[in-house]
């Protein structure tokens, strides 16, 4: 399962790679990283069919996670990837907006990796 993680913090890559070390080694999960909304869209142009899931932060410089969500939902209506948005704690505005534009799931910062692993496991199995 290929997952695209979109976050403006480069350290996210190291964190995900370490957190999912075993899963990556087993070949269960395959992560790609984009550090802005624009970069994510650019990546999707070439790999649209591969990406099964997108994990995106909302507050990013340039294109925000919500805009990214809107664009993806508009451009890929036929084979929609699963999109999980990462919302800041208590940020109800972004939560309801993400909900409105068709996000599949939500994670709150700080990301609880145990919970995320469980969610990915469920999706992977189904």
């Amino acid at each position: 399962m290929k997952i695209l993680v979109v976050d403006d913090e480069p350290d996210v890559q190291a964190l995900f790679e370490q957190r999912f070390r075993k899963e990556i080694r087993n070949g269960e999960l395959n992560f790609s990283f984009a550090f802005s909304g624009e970069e994510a869209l650019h990546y999707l142009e070439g790999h649209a069919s591969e990406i099964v899931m997108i994990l995106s932060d909302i507050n990013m410089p340039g294109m925000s996670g919500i805009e990214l969500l809107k664009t993806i939902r508009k451009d890929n209506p036929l084979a929609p990837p699963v999109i999980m948005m990462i919302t800041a704690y208590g940020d109800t505005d972004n939560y309801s907006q993400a909900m409105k534009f068709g996000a599949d799931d939500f994670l709150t910062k700080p990301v609880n990796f145990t919970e995320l692993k469980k969610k990915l496991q469920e999706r992977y199995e189904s």
Partner: protein
Amino acid sequence: MEFFLLTFFLIQFIRKRLETATKLPEWDKLLLGARYVSIGLMAAYYIFDESKIVSWLWYPFVSYVLWIIFTKDEFKPVRSLAQGSFPFIAISLFNDFARLIVPTKLFNQYGDYLVTAKVFAFIWLFAVWYNSQKQQRVLDKEREAQRIKDEVNQAKKEALEYLVTERTIELTRQKEELQKTLDELKSTQAQLIQSEKMASLGELTAGIAHEIQNPLNFVNNFSEVSVELCQELEEEIAKTSISDSDKEYISGIISDLSQNQQKITHHGKRADSIVKGMLQHSRTSSGHKEPTDINALADEYMRLAYHGLRAKDKEFNATLVTDFDPTIGKIDVLPQDLGRVFLNLFTNSFYAVAEKKRLSKENPTLPDYKPEVKVITKLFANKLYIRVIDNGTGMPESVKAKIFQPFFTTKPTGQGTGLGLSMSYDIITKSHDGLLDVTSVPGESTEFKITIPVNA
């Protein structure tokens, strides 16, 4: 006869002119006496068959009266009149002397002239009197006019004085009103400064929390994953073929590393909970105001706070007193936020009484202490009043001044974030347009008072 008329009228005139009856009662008596003397003299004159001796007695009497008039200051106003009698007295005197020393034949020859002169002197006298009377009348009239004028002036003066007094009262009243307004303004200003301070502190707090949140997440996540990595490392080392003593040494280091990472995670989580508390500050109050049973809410959170403390300290005991106003009904509030305020206030109260209990146990000389926490609700004049009172440790003025500031706490490190009251303050003042006041007697009691306006 003529002297009688003279003295009688003169005395009468003096008494009238000087108003002796009221103004000079002593002199009035003497004047009345003089009148009787003149009546007496006249009577004596006729009784003694027109005796010449009696008629001579008039002279000392009249002289005496005139002497008094001209020597006593009280009679100054009637002197000019008295002067009018001089010609008559002089002619009478001359007449009587002439009759005595001049031979009767000669006297009779010129007697007619003397009588004529006497009559003229008498007429003169009355003319003077009449004139004086007339002048007096004019004077009286003028005086009357002056008196009326004075009265009018007096009335005007009184009216003016009344006006001045009225104005003064008005001005005093205005001054007091202004003073009152000024005092109110001053206290409002103090409140504004306080709430501004709190607002900017709240914003600052939220800003800091936002900025700290992301790096803190990384700290927590990396430390957590490092623990996992340590475990993996240990597993991998077990597979290698290095000597057991080396393995032990290495695994010792790994376990220390793992412990360190766990400590980082632990303290990172602590910081995280503080950050969460800070963020609750800025959270634009979620949810809507809904009709809430304030009494039930207060009661619920009072028990919650009590049992929360009991769970930590089995020995702790306190009397819970509730004095609820049953007429409150349901009031539009943010139940979750107000609940948080209640929880903070009650937790603090129970903490304060528990502290005092602990102190009284340490010092057996203190009188027996019965912890008590009380909540009072009251709806009055479209305002909801909630008071939370405890008989705990109280607090000094220096502490009282800071309790609503974020991060201010008197609890030991780790037991309080110092955000509870700061947040409660925000919830009451911002979300409910209310007031949160505190009064405290150090060592005795603390009272928090919430005032929330209620739309009728």
